[in-house]
């Protein structure tokens, strides 16, 4: 039992590793604040393009979305980080993560938002257009607000996944929380930093999880 506590829940180690872990936690926050908006922006673009009726837009878009949903994000990230320099584009760790998440996360957000847009009845657009609103105005003021509201739990759920997924940035040596925890682990020969990182993720995400389940309950209640 003592060995277990010594190895996994060692308060002294936590104190020693704290500066490194704190840096990692901040980097993870920053990373999330970068990739979530990027993914959302990509998602909105994809969702708007998917309302186009011409096959010249729809087909390439389909291929794009399918590709980046099927490709494992880790592979995508390594490919961008290690592959792009060969064609003369060295984007660095942060750049690679930004591009990778824009492509991968954007595809997921895009599919969610597209489902949201399709859930808004056609009559809404017709009513808006009949009063003289343009296509773009009808989309901005009538369709998108309802679309987002209809798929809010899915958007939040995906955002949780995205924040957790930021840990893959460790493979390109970006010093986020998991990367820092493993550094600390290898310096201290102790697993406690990993446990500390798990607690940090929990503290970060648990409020969002609570919010999500409240929203889901409310939607279920609203459906009655």
């Amino acid at each position, binding site marked *: 039992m003592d060995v277990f506590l010594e190895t996994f829940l060692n308060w002294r180690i936590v104190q020693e590793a704290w500066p490194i872990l704190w840096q990692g936690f901040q980097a993870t926050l920053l990373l999330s604040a970068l990739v979530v908006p990027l993914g959302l922006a990509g998602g909105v673009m994809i969702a708007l393009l998917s309302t186009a009726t011409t096959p010249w837009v729809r087909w390439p878009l389909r291929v794009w979305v399918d590709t980046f949903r099927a490709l494992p994000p880790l592979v995508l990230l390594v490919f961008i980080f290690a592959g792009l320099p060969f064609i003369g584009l060295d984007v660095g760790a942060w750049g690679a993560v930004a591009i990778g998440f824009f492509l991968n996360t954007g595809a997921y957000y895009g599919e969610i938002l597209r489902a949201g847009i399709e859930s808004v*009845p056609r009559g*809404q657009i*017709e009513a*808006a*257009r*009949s*009063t003289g609103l343009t296509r773009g105005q009808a989309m901005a003021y*009538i369709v998108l607000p309802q679309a987002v509201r209809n798929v809010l739990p899915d958007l939040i759920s995906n955002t949780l996944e995205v924040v957790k997924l930021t840990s893959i940035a460790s493979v390109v040596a970006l010093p986020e929380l998991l990367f820092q925890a493993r550094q600390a682990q290898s310096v201290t020969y102790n697993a406690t930093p990993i446990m500390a990182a798990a607690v940090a993720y929990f503290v970060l995400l648990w409020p969002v999880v609570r919010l999500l389940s409240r929203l889901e309950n409310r939607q279920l209640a609203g459906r009655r």
Partner: protein
Amino acid sequence: MSPAPIVDARAIHKHFGHLHVLRGVDLQVAEKELVFLIGPSGSGKSTLLRCLNRLEEPSAGSVTVDGIDMLDPRTDINKARQRIGMVFQSFNLYPHMTALGNVALALRKVQGLPRADAEAKAQAALERVHLADRADHYPAQLSGGQQQRVAIARAIALEPRVMLFDEPTSALDPELVGGVLAVMRELREDGMTMVVVSHEMGFARAAADRVVFMADGLIVETGPPGEIFANPQHERTRAFISQIERH
């Protein structure tokens, strides 16, 4: 119809794939006239109505409303549509906005009025449909009849020259129909030009200047309500009227 008609649709055809829904329809409506479009479902009356503000693109023909060629690609359709109010069977109120917000939206975003002016105008429109006290209610908090009256307010707030009604009472419980018809009657008394697709025969008798009977994408006959209902000239009309009357 001595002066130029305010709505002038000529030789309208509409195809949906291989379905030929409108097969050469002419419809002229004079200023301040109330025209009723009736006919069995699938006769094309709703499609004709939707061609008038180009929610539906006619496959052939011409549509002029208040002197504006609606089908000319150079026409600013969004500007033209402000002169043509439309009310839908399923109300189509924006559920995420209050009644006032629903009415004020186009005033602000299309006509560019400052928020306060738009809301004052929207409030006046709600007053005309007797819902001034429901301004801050969301559609889900209103009855079907109230929702439809808000939808009418949304249309008349833009001060249109013509109002189109697409089965405005079909989705309502019977006890809520009266309130909507009363508002429509008041609009008529204020001199609004109206084209109404509806099966409210009592209302047609009392308020319509002219009834147009359509079947199979064509206008079969047209005349004052008294004549159409009491003495229809065509067999199709007679069959339809007697079927409606039985209910």
